[in-house]
């Protein structure tokens, strides 16, 4: 069975192989480990370019917007999400500038495929993983890849779209077996995926937490409880009514969000669910900062047994933060 990184690399390699007049670029994408396997065995169309670049992330981001402005397809592959902080000015200001006078449908395509370093030992400097924060500031779409279904759908439908977006991978999932799920439903904008249908609990997985959500689903099943598992892959879900409908049936919601942020999208879902289903039991599992508003621990681990116990206890109107 392929690992997460190998399987996604194969999907990407297949998708980009026939895109004409495109530019695929990034640091070390054609040498060495090819970004730890992310860009391995890339072959591009004769009319396209595969460029191994120097180390200048800010400029890489501006280049993508320039190519997009001229109608080209540009895909930047980057090792770490925190490197992209250098491009924030372009994400916010340059793209806003372009969108102010150009219809996105008339633009080329610019996608940044990037790995969030969240494996637990990168250290405090290089472990920024909150894709949602970056997308929120710039008001741009950003998609996380966590399993066979969301990866295939997002790469197929979003990679070549006009305009700009992030597609982000998780380093902590990279060496693991690629999660294989059945798909019940996917929103047309690739924002919300549903993998299981159950009647006792609803599990909403944000950022890269789908594997943990599936684990909780399995633990509940061992106790004879069925659950609906959703993943919210885009930071701008236009419609998560399917999650709210599920909670209205199950009466229980668990939100998992591993983003290192004090501004979680999961809180917005909790708020909406609280208004729509006030009697539901709601639990959110996040990373707690280990200093006030400061560094969060690298590892994201959930205590499934404790969560199951909480879920099966008496309903509470107040959300619980774990």
């Amino acid at each position, binding site marked *: 069975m392929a690992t997460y990184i190998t399987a996604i690399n194969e999907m990407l390699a297949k998708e980009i192989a026939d895109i004409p007049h495109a530019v695929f670029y990034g640091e070390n994408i054609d040498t060495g480990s090819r970004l730890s396997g992310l860009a391995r065995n890339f072959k591009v169309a004769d009319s396209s*370019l595969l460029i191994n670049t120097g180390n*200048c992330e800010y400029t890489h981001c501006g280049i993508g917007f*320039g*190519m997009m*402005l001229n*109608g080209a397809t540009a895909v930047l592959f980057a090792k770490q999400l925190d490197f992209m902080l250098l491009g924030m000015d372009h994400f916010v200001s340059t793209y806003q500038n372009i969108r102010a006078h150009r219809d996105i449908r008339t633009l080329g395509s610019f996608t940044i495929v990037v790995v969030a370093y969240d494996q637990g030992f990168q250290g405090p400097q290089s472990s920024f993983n909150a894709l949602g924060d970056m997308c929120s500031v710039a008001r741009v779409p950003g998609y996380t890849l966590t399993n066979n279904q969301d990866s295939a759908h997002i790469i197929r439908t979003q990679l070549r779209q006009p305009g700009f977006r992030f597609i982000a991978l998780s380093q902590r999932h990279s060496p693991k077996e690629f999660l294989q799920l059945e798909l019940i439903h996917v929103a047309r904008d690739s924002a919300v995926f549903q993998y299981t249908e159950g009647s006792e609990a609803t599990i909403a997985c944000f950022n890269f937490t789908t594997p943990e959500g599936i684990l909780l689903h399995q633990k509940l099943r061992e106790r004879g409880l069925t659950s609906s598992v959703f993943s919210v892959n885009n930071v701008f879900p236009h419609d998560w009514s399917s999650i709210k409908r599920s909670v209205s049936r199950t009466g229980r919601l668990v939100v998992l969000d591993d983003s290192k942020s004090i501004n979680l999208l999961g809180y917005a879902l909790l708020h909406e669910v609280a208004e729509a289903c006030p009697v539901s039991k709601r639990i959110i599992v996040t990373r707690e900062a280990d200093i006030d508003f400061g560094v969060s621990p690298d590892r994201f681990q959930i205590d499934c047994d404790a969560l199951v116990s909480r879920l099966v206890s008496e309903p509470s109107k107040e959300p619980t933060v774990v």
Partner: protein
Amino acid sequence: MNTRANFARQALEMEMIRLRHWQHIMNEDLKKKLFTVPIHVAFGSEAIAVAVSNIMTSDDQLALTHRNMAYNLARAGALKPVYEEYKLSGSGVSGGRMGSMNMVNPARGIVYSSSTLGNNFSVACGLALAKRAKREPGVVIVTTGDGAMEEGGFYEALVFAKSQRLKLMIVVENNNHSMSSTIEQRRCDIAIEKMCEAVNVRYKLLATNDVFEYVPVLSALRTHVDEQATPLCVEAKLALMNQHAGPTPGWPADPMNVDIKNGMVVRDSVDDPLHVLKQTIGAAEFDKLAAQVSSQKWN
């Protein structure tokens, strides 16, 4: 001089005077606080702007800075669409959506103007790389100032453009100012020629403010960029002859007291491209053209 060359020369003369006059009109309304957006008048940029505009082919593209008035007027060939953009009117050159510092005119090759210092370097590299990928003709010209070129993106763009053999012409307008700070007040001297030499990028200094010199020189440099598929850097020495950006809160009154009543020429020195033009074509011819331009209703 043959008829065609004479005609081209007269057209340049008229473009220079017209561009100065239009800036005067804008400056007078700026002093009356008729604009809500900050406007960066560019007295002193006429020679380089008119020359750049004249060497561009229909396939070329411009990526400008916030101080883009001279280039936008030169490319538009008219005052009204630019003026209307400053008024944020729908009839403006960018539909009233971009205002001053981000003004674009794609139909005339101005595809991006950055109000953020230095963001246009990398965007210009992307424009040029897209041309290469799509096998499209033309060069990309990116302008900057002695302030914006302090940004790290300038160096990164030089390296990237050279590495990827991009058809990119960088024009550094060195007016010795970043807002109110002179170079000496804010940093050490930067030898742009040596920066270019370090990455094997050709460099050319333009310092005469003579549009008749600039056009053939820039035309030859553009051909070099296009035929050799290589970036190139031009440094144009300019003088700052007007206030920073009009009604900027806290900004003092125009220190140079530029006034349309004082005539086309702002400064009687080679700092002023219109002074240079007047010396070149003679006062009688210059005054005749100036009177002709001034008598027309432009706005």
